[in-house]
């Protein structure tokens, strides 16, 4: 009978682990990711790129049509369902006819990048270890698996191979993965097809797909600005309790940011950040990628110092030593704590700001800088935690920075420009904006007739000096695309010019 009791208690532990409270950090796709993406795009030059280079007079507000009949097998099955699941109030759900403004497609891409929810497993990147989410094993994994088994999504996921076992691919790998339908690969290929396609309908669909993929690419970057995602922290950050239901697990920080800012209240992006390559926006040797910066400057709920024992035999130095030793990452560093005063909540401030003042008491006047974490001396222990004050400062610091990196990435992806100077019967073609020499690609030119049909009519080497080419008779529009590579990596440059 003892074994029976042991087994039953094991089962109880599983249940307990399912219901056990925890806290979390993450961004809500429908509101925070949507708002971040919107802000990043508006801070970028994309409006002018669309209106000038692609002859879309309304730029970001240009209606773009995605015809579902143009989608290939796998996409035809998954994409429409994910788009139909979007909230119309957000302004990024396409109409039943598949029409939405260019900006809406980008935002929709950022949201569906995490639909279904388990796609989030591939949006982690630990820049210190160079890997993705790796927290498999243990009761949390078992409990989460059981919860998902009972959730309709989990059963569906089990059937389709998208089930989540607390591991995932690094986001840097997922960004360029061929099976990421809103990733970099899709962006490059669909943008090229939006120019090179023969018929207007499929070209419109390709442009919508490219914009969706641009949004998906931004979503990956935005999650590099989320502490839990760069500190290998799913258990501590996501398996919290939202309510008494065991299926309602979520993040207090996610809720905080979503409820505080929603979609339209997300702060404006900072000035666009320039980085040498796409990956350098996430991580680089100079440690100025967004993931690098986020990891060393912010705690997540599951990577805090462990609670310290305080009794008559321990000193402040002992507590500090134990707390520092329990940190899974060297940074942020834990400064000296003030352990006097039982029951007083205090804050640790980010190191740069800490120079301007010491830790302040909670609830008083605004603190001297960004609050990094909170701690509380209780009888026998000192507890470390993140509270609303830390969430406030974290969001205020991170959200504009994420927007700035996002805006920079958009401009980076559209860095090269094809100039088309149309005269009576000829077009002069030149390239600018590429980083160094363009390799592995030609500029392909297409002539569009009155019916909208495009046919290739010339190919030329990419060069900053203009090459003049004769325009075929009956041409109403010239289009050009370059899919190549420069010193910054792969690039696609596009241009369209009407011929009156």
């Amino acid at each position: 009978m003892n074994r029976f009791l042991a087994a039953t208690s094991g089962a109880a532990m599983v249940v307990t682990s399912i219901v056990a409270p925890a806290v979390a950090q993450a961004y809500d796709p429908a509101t925070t990711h949507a708002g971040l993406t919107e802000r990043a795009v508006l801070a970028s030059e994309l409006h002018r790129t669309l209106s000038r280079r692609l002859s879309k007079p309304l730029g970001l507000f240009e209606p773009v049509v995605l015809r579902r009949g143009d989608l290939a097998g796998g996409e035809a099955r998954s994409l429409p369902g994910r788009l139909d699941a979007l909230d119309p109030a957000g302004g990024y759900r396409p109409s039943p006819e598949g029409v939405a403004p260019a900006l809406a497609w980008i935002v929709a891409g950022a949201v569906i990048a995490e639909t279904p929810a388990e796609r989030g497993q591939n949006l982690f990147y630990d820049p210190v270890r160079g890997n993705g989410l790796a927290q498999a094993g243990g009761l949390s994994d078992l409990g989460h698996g059981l919860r998902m088994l009972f959730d309709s999504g989990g059963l569906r996921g089990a059937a389709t191979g998208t089930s989540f076992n607390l591991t995932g691919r690094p986001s840097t790998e997922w960004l360029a993965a061929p099976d990421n339908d809103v990733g970099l690969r899709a962006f490059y290929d669909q943008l090229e097809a939006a120019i090179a396609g023969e018929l207007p309908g499929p070209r419109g669909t390709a442009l919508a797909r490219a914009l969706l993929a641009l949004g998906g690419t931004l979503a990956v970057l935005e999650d590099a600005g989320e502490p839990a995602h760069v500190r290998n922290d799913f258990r501590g950050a996501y398996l919290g309790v939202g309510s008494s239901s065991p299926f309602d697990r979520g993040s207090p920080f996610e809720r905080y940011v979503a409820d505080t800012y929603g979609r339209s209240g997300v702060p404006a992006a900072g000035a666009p950040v320039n980085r040498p390559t796409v990956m350098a926006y996430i991580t680089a040797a100079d440690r100025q990628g967004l993931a690098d910066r986020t990891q060393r400057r912010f705690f997540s709920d599951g990577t805090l110092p462990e609670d310290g024992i305080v009794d008559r035999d321990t000193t402040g130095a002992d507590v500090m030593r134990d707390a520092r030793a329990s940190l899974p990452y060297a940074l942020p560093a834990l400064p000296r704590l003030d352990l006097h005063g039982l029951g007083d909540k205090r804050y640790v401030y980010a190191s740069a700001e800490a120079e301007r003042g010491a830790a302040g008491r909670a609830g008083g006047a605004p603190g001297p800088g960004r609050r990094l974490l909170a701690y509380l001396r209780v009888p026998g222990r000192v507890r470390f935690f993140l509270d609303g004050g830390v969430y406030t400062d974290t969001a205020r610091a991170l959200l504009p920075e994420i927007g700035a990196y996002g805006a920079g990435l958009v401009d980076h992806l559209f860095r090269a420009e094809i100039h088309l100077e149309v005269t009576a019967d000829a077009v002069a073609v030149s390239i600018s904006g590429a980083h160094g020499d363009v390799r592995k690609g030609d500029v392909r030119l297409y002539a569009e007739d009155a019916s909208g049909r495009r046919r290739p009519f010339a190919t030329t080497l990419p060069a900053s000096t203009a090459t003049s080419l004769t325009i075929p008779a009956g041409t109403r529009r010239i289009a050009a695309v370059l899919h190549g590579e420069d010193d910054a990596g792969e690039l696609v440059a596009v241009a369209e010019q009407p011929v009156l």
Partner: protein
Amino acid sequence: MGRGVRRKAAAVFLSVFSVFSVFGALLCACGPLVERAPFPVRPDSVRPADLLGPYDGIVVDVDSDRPIAGATVAASWAFESGIGFHAPAGAREVVVETGADGRYAIPRLDDLPEGASARIRRFTLVVYHRGNVAWRSDRIFPGRSLRRDFSQRGARIRLDRWQTNLRHANHLVFLGGGAKVRAAAAWELQAAALELDGEQVPVTRPRMESTGGSTLVPLDISKLLSDDEVRGVTGYVGKFEDGKLTDLPTTEFYDSRHFKALGKPESYDVGLRVWRLGASASEVQYGKLMAALPDARTTDEVGDGSFRAKAGALGGLVFLVRERGVVVSLTCGAAQCPEPAQLTKLAKLVESRLPDLPPEPVRNMAPPLPEGVPSDSDGPATKPTPAPEVPEP
């Protein structure tokens, strides 16, 4: 099989059974999770609303407090699912228009999502009426601060008048909403695009209607040129199908006409576009067209300045009339206008008719924002170089 082994198997079975029973009971006991509404059930109550509804209220003009008829009211419930990670899992949208009394009613949501982790995450009401500032139940424009005056029943939705210091681009981004809301707000698209180009957009004051609501009058250029006049100039004997050029929507400062030759190729067509933008903006638009249109060469034959552009079988003549703040673009196919003088005649005809345009509404160029005035300045910085707005040929 020993007795101990049987007892061990029974224990494992019972433990697994107990876990599944707990989950089964939990699963059966609950429908979708319904979030606590962030607004009260009534304006004078502190009791949280029922997120599922029903909802009702009245839309009024903030200045006159009179009901606004014909406002688009879009209600949507957002569903989510997922454990740990959350993702959109569907939505329900109901769109109605306010009646003559300004009232709306949204029925209770009865089509609930399924799944153990399914939750009804948000309810959002979006109200849009041309000439007024858009209204959302979650945020306030401009400023984007949290809204705290919405309630489930008996809501009084006060729409502010559109102000000239507001930006259409930020307004449209703030607005959100589904396809019907976007359709209602489509008239703002061109102004929004110009703003992001770095242009200052002429803004008309809304004209009050008898209902207490307000509206903006679209530009109408139908009196500037007729089928017979085109035929009289070109000698064409066929019929035209009259319509609008479809690449840019008609707004209060832009309109177009497309004289489509029935049964003939496009080289017989005539197109007319007119921008009435005011003195400075019309200069900018004229310059943009000149920079963007192919093979442009100055001719100065009509108006205060003009140029011709040509490509293939189409010829174009664009002219500026500063006094009226108008830019006109005429295109004519080579088969319809084989002689350059014919295009000139058509242009001069249009120029002579410009006084026949309907009176211009009171116009104000969007001024720099004075200090201390609430604005939606959290939008993108204006770009330093205007981008050419190139209509479809």
